[in-house]
């Protein structure tokens, strides 16, 4: 059989589609109306701001003689924050070398885990350990456990980003906790995309202006910091078996525990740990 025929056979007999073109058209028309309305409102806000700035400038020049230093307090926290760059079109490239970032991020995440275990509901937490099988070999002899330096759980580099994998174990089974830290601009679109893997999704804004996307049922949190750091924390209760059971050995996924061990709130607090940034 030719590849062409095999592909046609593989894609034959599709199930009924869930795509409703009428609903899609209606939704898009509604979104277009909303965009137009927001555009008008934005333009109106711009005009108001321009007038306000103009009035302030005129008042400033009128109230203070030219050449005279104007005293007063220095920049406030709000001033400094507003001076920071807003959403960026391209990711910033971290300048911190991996040799410095890896121990710093590992320590920051350890502290976040400690804070989680000492916080509300911390007593019921599963055992959380680094998944050593995915880590590069730790250098140097480690004869005495009491003097062993903390394991550097993150690996990667400034361009590819850093990732760490932990295993969560309790009587219900085990799951994997994946942490990925990369440079990425804050998304301009605040919509939360749901799909087959993410049937519920919410967007919130953190106290520092971070944008936090959290979703279920596959317990995942994506957090975008204003400084250009993108943090993904995901708990997975699925293990891929590339070599499935006999006789056909078809790859399959195995569920390792019925429910996730951590709540979405706990994942959000881990992702929000202050030290998890690429731009310290």
């Amino acid at each position: 059989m030719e590849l062409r025929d095999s592909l046609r056979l593989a894609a034959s007999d599709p199930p009924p589609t869930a795509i409703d073109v009428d609903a899609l058209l209606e939704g898009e028309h509604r979104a277009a109306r909303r965009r137009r309305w927001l555009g008008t409102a934005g333009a109106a806000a711009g005009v108001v701001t321009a007038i306000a700035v103009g009035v302030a400038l005129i008042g400033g020049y009128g109230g203070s003689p030219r050449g005279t230093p104007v005293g007063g307090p220095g920049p406030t926290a709000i001033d400094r924050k507003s001076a920071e760059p807003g959403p960026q079109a391209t990711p910033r490239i971290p300048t911190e070398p991996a040799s410095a970032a890896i121990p710093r991020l590992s320590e920051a995440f350890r502290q976040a885990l400690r804070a989680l275990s000492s916080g509300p509901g911390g007593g019921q937490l599963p055992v959380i350990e680094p998944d050593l099988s995915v880590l590069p070999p730790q250098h140097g002899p480690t004869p005495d456990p009491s003097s062993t330096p903390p394991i550097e759980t993150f690996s990667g580099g400034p361009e590819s980003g850093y990732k760490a994998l932990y295993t969560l174990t309790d009587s219900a089974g085990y799951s994997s906790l994946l942490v990925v830290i990369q440079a990425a601009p804050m998304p301009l679109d605040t919509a939360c995309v749901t799909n087959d893997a993410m049937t519920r999704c919410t967007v919130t804004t953190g106290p520092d202006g971070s944008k936090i996307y959290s979703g279920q049922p596959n317990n995942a949190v994506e957090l975008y910091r204003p400084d250009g750091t993108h943090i993904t924390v995901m708990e997975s209760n699925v293990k891929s078996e590339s070599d499935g059971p006999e006789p056909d050995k078809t790859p399959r996924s195995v569920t390792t525990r019925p429910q996730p061990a951590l709540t979405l709130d706990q994942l959000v607090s881990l992702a929000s740990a202050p030290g998890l940034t690429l731009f310290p």
Partner: protein
Amino acid sequence: MASDDAGYREYVSHRLDGLRRTAYLLCGDWHTADDLVSTALVKLLRHWRRVSAMEHPDAYVRRILLRAWLDERRRPWRREHATDVLPDRAVSTVDAADRLALLALLAELPPRRRAVLVLRYFCDLSVEETAEALGCATGTVKSQTARALESLRARLVGVRAIEEWEWN
């Protein structure tokens, strides 16, 4: 607006099936395929006036679909999930073993190589059209095709004679 909608509806009704099958071969899952096609159709709708005036709107739609799929692949948390609800479809009478075997083999290929195979051998695109859809050189398409077929052949040793399969 109404005539735009009618034109869009007509276009989608003719292409929906093909787009779904293409998406399915790319991602290996009908639900994800529907999500990808929905994403592509929303983007198509936003630019429908411009796209409908194009000479080859299909190429544009395929590009959107490919980008939607490649974007989806970059989101680690959306690749795999557990479910306790099984689909209530009956098992297909089509040769399920062959289908699964091919999908499993495709799934092992890197995304762009898989896309090259699907575009060339399922969508019947030429090397030039495939290069345009993927935004790369024709030489890249040729080398990716050769490598993809080589990978498939290596994996299929002992499973099926691949000698009959095309190489160009």
